[in-house]
């Protein structure tokens, strides 16, 4: 059992939870995640460790489906049955100089510890966060605490620049005084793919944190496999961070849809006509 110490809704359906997990907190490095499992009928849900201190870990969780909803419904003082981690490889931090960190939707939560580690590592961090509209923009102040600049984009223009994160990224890349030597992007697959295509012609090193569907998170099932330069990699152990220019995003997107589509297939398969 893992005691929930804090649980605040910081944006619509986005919760910041602080949970007691001394062993995980002690071992955790930026870029790593945990897998949470609430009970015998629940799924195992991977979540990035945003911060770890004093025997606690901090998580930012967007309630998108049953699994994440179940987790955020546990109040402060309640317990989470299973938390396993820290999983995945730590972010490889080096001194790039000027870096741009791009977060889309709940990817911003995954981006946060990565951006912070980059800033702590002496890099000059500019952050771009994007979302559908103003309420979906999360962690702006938290990111501003260590970013040189935080740029916001919304699709409807209700906050910051109207458009996509790539709109701002293009501007930065075209400005010789702000042009990054590395880009870190976390968000929906189409966003990461778009960022990769934007930086590829200029040869700007680009790292993405991938979020395939996972089960165990320890390399046992192979469900999280992604093609990187044509080779099978397990995102839970070899990643989750990879060189964006080598990732097969189309395959990743397709595999992420597995269980959205699986039930339609099953009903088609079992109907007598099929």
């Amino acid at each position, binding site marked *: 059992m893992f005691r929930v110490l804090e649980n605040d809704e910081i944006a619509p359906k986005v919760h910041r939870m602080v949970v007691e997990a001394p062993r995980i907190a002690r071992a955790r490095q930026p870029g790593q995640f945990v897998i949470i499992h609430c009970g015998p009928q629940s799924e195992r849900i991977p979540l990035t460790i945003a911060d770890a201190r004093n025997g606690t870990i901090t998580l930012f969780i967007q309630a998108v489906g049953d699994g994440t909803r179940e987790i955020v419904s546990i109040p402060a003082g309640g317990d989470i049955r*299973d938390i396993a981690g820290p999983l995945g490889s730590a972010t490889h931090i080096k001194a790039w100089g000027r870096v741009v960190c791009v977060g889309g939707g709940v990817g911003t939560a995954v981006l946060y510890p990565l951006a912070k580690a980059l800033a702590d590592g002496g890099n000059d961090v500019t952050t771009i966060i994007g979302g559908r509209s103003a309420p979906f923009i999360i962690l702006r102040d938290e990111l501003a605490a260590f970013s040189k600049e935080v740029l916001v984009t919304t699709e409807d223009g209700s906050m910051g620049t109207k458009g996509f994160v790539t709109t701002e990224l293009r501007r930065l890349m075209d400005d010789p005084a702000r042009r990054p030597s590395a880009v870190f992007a976390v968000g929906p697959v189409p966003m990461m793919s778009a960022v990769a295509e934007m930086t590829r012609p200029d040869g700007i090193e680009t790292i993405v944190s991938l979020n395939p569907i996972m089960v*165990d998170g320890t390399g046992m099932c192979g469900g999280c496999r992604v093609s990187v330069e044509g080779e099978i990699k397990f995102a839970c152990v070899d990643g989750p961070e990879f060189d964006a220019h080598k990732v097969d995003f189309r395959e990743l997107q397709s595999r992420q849809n597995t269980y959205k589509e699986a039930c339609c297939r099953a009903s088609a*398969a079992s109907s007598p006509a099929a």
Partner: protein
Amino acid sequence: MATPLSTKERMQIARVHMPEQDPCLRACNFSEVNLGLGEALAIQEAQRCLECKNQPCVTGCPVGVRIPEFITRVAAGDFSGAAEILRADNALPATTGRVCPQETQCEEVCVRGKKGEPVGIGWLERFVADWASEHMAPPQPPPERTGRKVCIVGAGPGGLTAAGELARMGHAVTVFEALHDTGGVLRYGIPEFRLPKSIVDREVENLRSLGVAIECNVIVGKTITVDQILQEFDACFIANGAGLPVFLDVPGENFKGVYSANEYLTRVNLMGAYRADAATPVARGSTTVVFGGGNVAMDAVRTARRMGSQRAIIAYRRTRAEMPARLEEIKHAEEEGIEFMFLVAPLEIFGDDKGWVRAVRLQRMELGEPDASGRRRPVPVPGSEFELPCELAIVAIGTRANPLLSNACPGLKLNKWGNIEIDDNGMTSIPGVFAGGDIVRGGATVILAMGDGKKAAGGIDRYLRELSPNSKAA
């Protein structure tokens, strides 16, 4: 109680039949296939044992169960006496009685098998273990404590056996398990219809009542390192299994609907995807092809059948004679309508425009010269390629050592396959750190892992006795 039978009388008793669920029914449910022997059948089967002086059957058992001793008691109707013997020799008898490949172990060397059928040792073991769990109190920890602390990595059969042995010796035992539940392959791999999870729960409960502490969600190498374990504990036994799935390395392997057997079985068993109330989904299809010919392939294909596949097909590179699966599983699979395609190997997996598997391309093989394993090597037949439409493809061609633990423990000596090397006592290159089971052997069997656990427990006990008296338990 019956008077003892003469050898001649015993020889005349034929092997009993295991009552089973009807194949048509069981192909649609997850309840156990074998229903177990009742008391009368068990006594009858036990009476077939000749109580051989030299006990060949015992040498066929990796944990040395005193087979004739316990069977004699069954024959006499003394089930609790039989259970005492079993419990002392075998930490998980309800499990091994169900999943041991008896035909290549204890029963292979049973004298009665020379002319006719061997004694149903596994079935009797199962009977006694099930009887004991209903009628006997769980085992208790010994009153004398050694004050030593031992850590076990992995709650699979290897780790659980070592834990039980060490607890019985009076050591304080803690098991660290990576997943959220115990049992290892017994829980996530072997399906409910072969090994009900209530049995695994019960065996684990028995260990808990022996005083074994089990902590799940601890991934050694990630949550805690072996070095840190050695600061807290006097010794450690690593039994983290060989849970890294091997893929086919053919084009199309990442299409949706292509699973490793580990993932497919984990979704269904550990995560309960066959139950209506489980959150974890699993893809279904009207035709499922499973690559492989071992127990894992058999479990995957029979599971797919139960999950609704009208056609559930085994595609195996060799022939039936070379299949490593337990005989009983092959027989049960055949009865359940599983199709077997022998001498075929996958060349490519095809997908539809949505990225779902729609067919596999296979090539026919023929058997050539024996390979290193002594089995005849399959050789491709040129021009024999053909396509087999399917909606699910499951890869069950083996597993390798998972490097999660060893990567974080550079002092641990590995062989070229990444398996941990041990000495005759089961000790690794790090003093006080022992290992056994699949992580040492590569994919093997439950009972071999348990044998390793038992041997390592002995090694650990000797190691602890030689340590200076100041323990970490203080």
